[in-house]
């Protein structure tokens, strides 16, 4: 039984099934694509059930060595750091596919791209071999390039190329770093090369080497996150991408960056992580404030949410490099929560766009009276995204702030302003779009959410609520792995993680 291989292979098999649909039966494609996106979710639920919460190491490990010389193997594993990103991917993907009903032209290629994208993303999160990780990390570009370039809006060509080139530049340095590490690990193990993550993690690297490698890896991941000032591809890619593309892009693709920072930078280069933590924290805080401030003035609601992502991901970076269990774990939690809330916001914007074919805020006004259910869901997700207590965003951001305050009080306070600004841009946008009398005549007859759209949104609303009210089970699975990373940093460097400012007791967990 190889559940992770199965998990990675299932979307690809689904893509093949969709590709095999004969040309004269186009009506099969949409339901079939939804159907084949569900088995990975089932596998993930099984993994979730069998996951050992207290175990900090990799679980469900599979290892097949492909080449002794090259040191490459099909090595997979999952731990608390990757578990919920895998869950997020498999939850969002069926919803994103179901939300793509308005894609008619080239629907088959679209669905194939989405499913290949899912395979790539899942592969990134479960790969334990650096070359396999890189292969998945890089291959994600192709379906995303096509999704943006073929089904995006006006400036799609520019946005698609910009997205690819930004990421690929980072990948170039990442691959150089991976090759150097693999050769060093091979030398240490008496082989020519080894790209096994566990071999690489066992390396004792000099501080100088750690710093160079940290920069190479961090550059690739910081572009992906994106960390200010490497973020300029993101607003274009998000705005031009089709709805489902934006959902997956914000929901999961960005998390490849934050995941990489925790999995590789913190774990493999402990001394360099401590050395560079200050810079990364500063960049994270700048991203929080900058993203939020720019979001306020956006006239396009999709662009607004795109900039809000920069702000939220700034929190994740801040937490990650606060180098405390709460900071890192809160960052991972916030990443998952951001995937749900921002994914939902992009879905909502896409549903509005399907009706009106514009995303300009000033094209709307007062539509709460014609679309009350839609307005309600939008407000709920806006609150969740802005970090209203009892919703998932609050748990993530608050934990990050708690985790970063002891080491970086000034940064935590500055980051706190991001929470306020988030309320400003989201609620101001809500006010302009939904409240008051209907301003434009063509908005008077807008249909409210239909059954399919509700079916897409309800799971997200439920998850946001559950994670907000009872986050403990999730945090309990994240924290052991994070503690292990942190213990390693403390053992290898002089770094001492400060005592938590406050234990979080959200949802009445039973921890002591």
């Amino acid at each position, binding site marked *: 039984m190889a559940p992770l291989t199965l998990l990675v292979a299932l979307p690809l098999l689904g893509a093949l099934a969709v590709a095999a649909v004969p040309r004269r039966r186009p009506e099969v494609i949409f339901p079939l694509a939804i159907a084949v996106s569900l088995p990975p979710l089932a596998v993930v639920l099984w993994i979730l059930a069998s996951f050992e919460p207290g175990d900090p190491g990799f679980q469900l490990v599979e290892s097949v060595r*492909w*080449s002794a*010389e*090259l040191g490459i193997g099909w090595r997979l594993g999952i731990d608390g750091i990757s578990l919920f990103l895998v869950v997020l991917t498999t939850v969002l993907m069926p919803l994103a596919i179901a939300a793509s009903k308005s894609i008619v032209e080239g629907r088959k290629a679209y669905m194939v791209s989405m499913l290949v994208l899912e395979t790539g993303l899942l592969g990134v999160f479960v790969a334990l071999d650096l*070359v396999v990780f*890189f*292969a*998945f990390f*890089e*291959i994600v*570009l*192709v379906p995303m*390039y*096509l999704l943006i*370039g*073929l089904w995006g809006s006006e400036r*799609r*060509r520019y946005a*698609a*190329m910009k997205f*690819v*080139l930004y990421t*690929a*530049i980072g*990948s*170039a*340095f990442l*691959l*150089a770093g991976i*090759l*150097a590490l*693999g*050769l060093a690990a091979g030398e240490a193990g008496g082989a*020519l*090369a080894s790209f096994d993550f566990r071999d690489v993690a066992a390396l004792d690297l000099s501080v100088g080497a750690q710093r160079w490698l940290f920069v190479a890896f961090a550059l690739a991941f910081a572009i992906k996150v994106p960390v200010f000032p490497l973020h300029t591809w993101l607003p274009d890619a998000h705005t031009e991408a089709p709805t489902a593309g934006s959902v997956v892009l914000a929901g999961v693709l960005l998390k490849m960056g934050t995941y990489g920072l925790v999995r590789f930078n913190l774990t493999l280069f402990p001394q360099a992580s401590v050395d560079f933590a200050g810079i990364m924290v500063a960049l994270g805080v700048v991203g929080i404030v900058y993203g939020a401030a720019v979001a306020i003035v956006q006239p396009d609601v999709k662009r607004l949410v795109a900039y809000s992502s920069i702000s939220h991901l700034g929190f994740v970076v801040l937490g990650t490099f606060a180098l405390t269990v709460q900071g890192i774990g809160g960052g991972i939690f916030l990443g998952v929560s951001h995937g749900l809330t921002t994914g939902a916001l992009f879905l909502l914007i896409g549903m509005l766009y399907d009706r009106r074919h514009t995303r300009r805020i000033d094209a709307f006004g007062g539509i709460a009276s014609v679309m009350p259910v839609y307005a309600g869901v939008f407000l709920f997700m806006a609150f969740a995204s802005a970090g209203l207590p009892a919703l998932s965003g609050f748990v993530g951001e608050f934990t990050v702030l708690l985790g970063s305050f002891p080491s970086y009080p000034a940064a935590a306070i500055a980051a706190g302003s991001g929470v306020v600004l988030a309320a400003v841009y989201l609620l101001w946008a809500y006010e302009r779009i939904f409240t008051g009398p209907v301003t434009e005549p063509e908005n008077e007859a807008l249909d409210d959410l239909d059954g399919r759209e509700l079916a897409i949104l309800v799971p997200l609303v439920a998850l946001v609520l559950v994670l907000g009210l009872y986050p403990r089970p999730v945090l309990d699975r994240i924290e052991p792995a994070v503690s292990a990373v942190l213990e390693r940093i403390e053992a290898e460097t002089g770094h001492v993680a400060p005592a938590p400012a406050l234990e979080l007791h959200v949802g009445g967990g039973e921890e002591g």
Partner: protein
Amino acid sequence: MNRADLVAVLPEVILLAGALAVVTLAVFADRPRAEWGTAAGLALFLAGVAAGVQWWALGDTPGSLHFSARGLEVLRNPMVVMDPYSALAGIAICVVGLLGLLAAWELVGSLGRRGPEFVALLLLAVAGLHAMTIAANLVLLFLALETASISFYVMAGFTRERLDADEAALKYFLLGSFASAIFVYGVALLFAATGALGIYGAGGLRSFFATTIVVEPGVLVVALGMLLVGFGFKVSAAPFHQWAPDVYQGAPSGAVGLMAAGVKLAGFLALGRVFAAGLPAQIDRWSSAVAILAGVSVIVGSVLAAVQRDVKRLLAYSGVAHAGYVLVGLTVGVFGLPAVTFYATTYAVMLMGAFALVGAVSGSGGGASPFEDWAGLGRRAPGLALAMTALLLGLGGLPFTAGFVGKLQVFTAAIRGGFLWLVVLALVTTVVGLYFYLRVVATMYFDDGEGAVAATPWTTRVVVGVAVVVTLALGIFPWPYLDVVRDALPL
């Protein structure tokens, strides 16, 4: 000549016999194209089988040396070497040659009575390419190089009613002859410096350097430099690449694939033979020169490819970059040869497929292949567009393609040899490569084009199919072939 000597040159014998058979069948017996074409295909196939037999016969032995005639052993100057390296090269060159014949099949049909001449030249060229990889003597290598080159000069100008084809042929001829002259001058100087023309044997380069410490290397360095320049021309490494774009653009599309892929494949393997296997003792003298050549090639090739608006010119300039990537692997000498072999063989097959598609889209007898021909191909001919996308992503080195595995190997080898700066440089230019290959993909899928694409002949479909299958199969599951190239070492 004993049996082993015959086996060593059997592919050449078969290919030359095939060329004679083609001419005889077509000119003297006036048989139809299907018959002499089959004879040519059979010759290429059998030559490949002969190379396979060599591989099988060698077994675990490192290889054997063969002399021009019995009795000359006293000179200890073997002419031909048969080792796993040359056997694999023979298989690869015959496969590429067969693909080249198939890709040129439509062109051959349109040439009418000159068709058989073209096919006979193609067989001669492949024989020359193969001889380059088995040559153990630099003079024989030069002769083989000229056999292949002269055949290709003529093939480049075969559609002589087109002015640009004439220009391409003349340019190819002049610059190619210039390169050959430099190469042979390098051979002469190497002889002056070492007294050796061969690689192996008691009078060869290897035994010279094993017993002699060169104190004043002046002539030797010039000789090595000239050999490198000569090879650099043939494999179109920058700054010796200027002929490539014009020649590729002017020559008939059906013939360009073999012209580009075949010469590069044989050129790289011969380069590996001479430098990595023949001059390992002098690696300190040539490895940094090769590294600089590689660095210049990846930069110049990538940057110039990025501004092209013609697919053939783009492939020509990107070929300069690919020459650079192969040279990256060569910097570490014999340890990099498996990587070089993997990269060169898979690149040759991908390039064959790409040029076959150029012929399918822009006409196999035609010259230029501007982006306008490719616009909207995703809708006009989805199969061709999909195949081209796969090949371009392979050339671009995306994961799960043979191009990625090849790059991974040459870069790993170079880092191991201490050329980290070169690898970082090459990786950054790979991103530029992604840009210009994706530009073609974008043109095919995001732009609107007009006009129907002519039906693709089955021969072209076979070439493209083989190239795509190789690109993906060796990208997803390269391990068996990696074992093969690991064992395919020169004597």
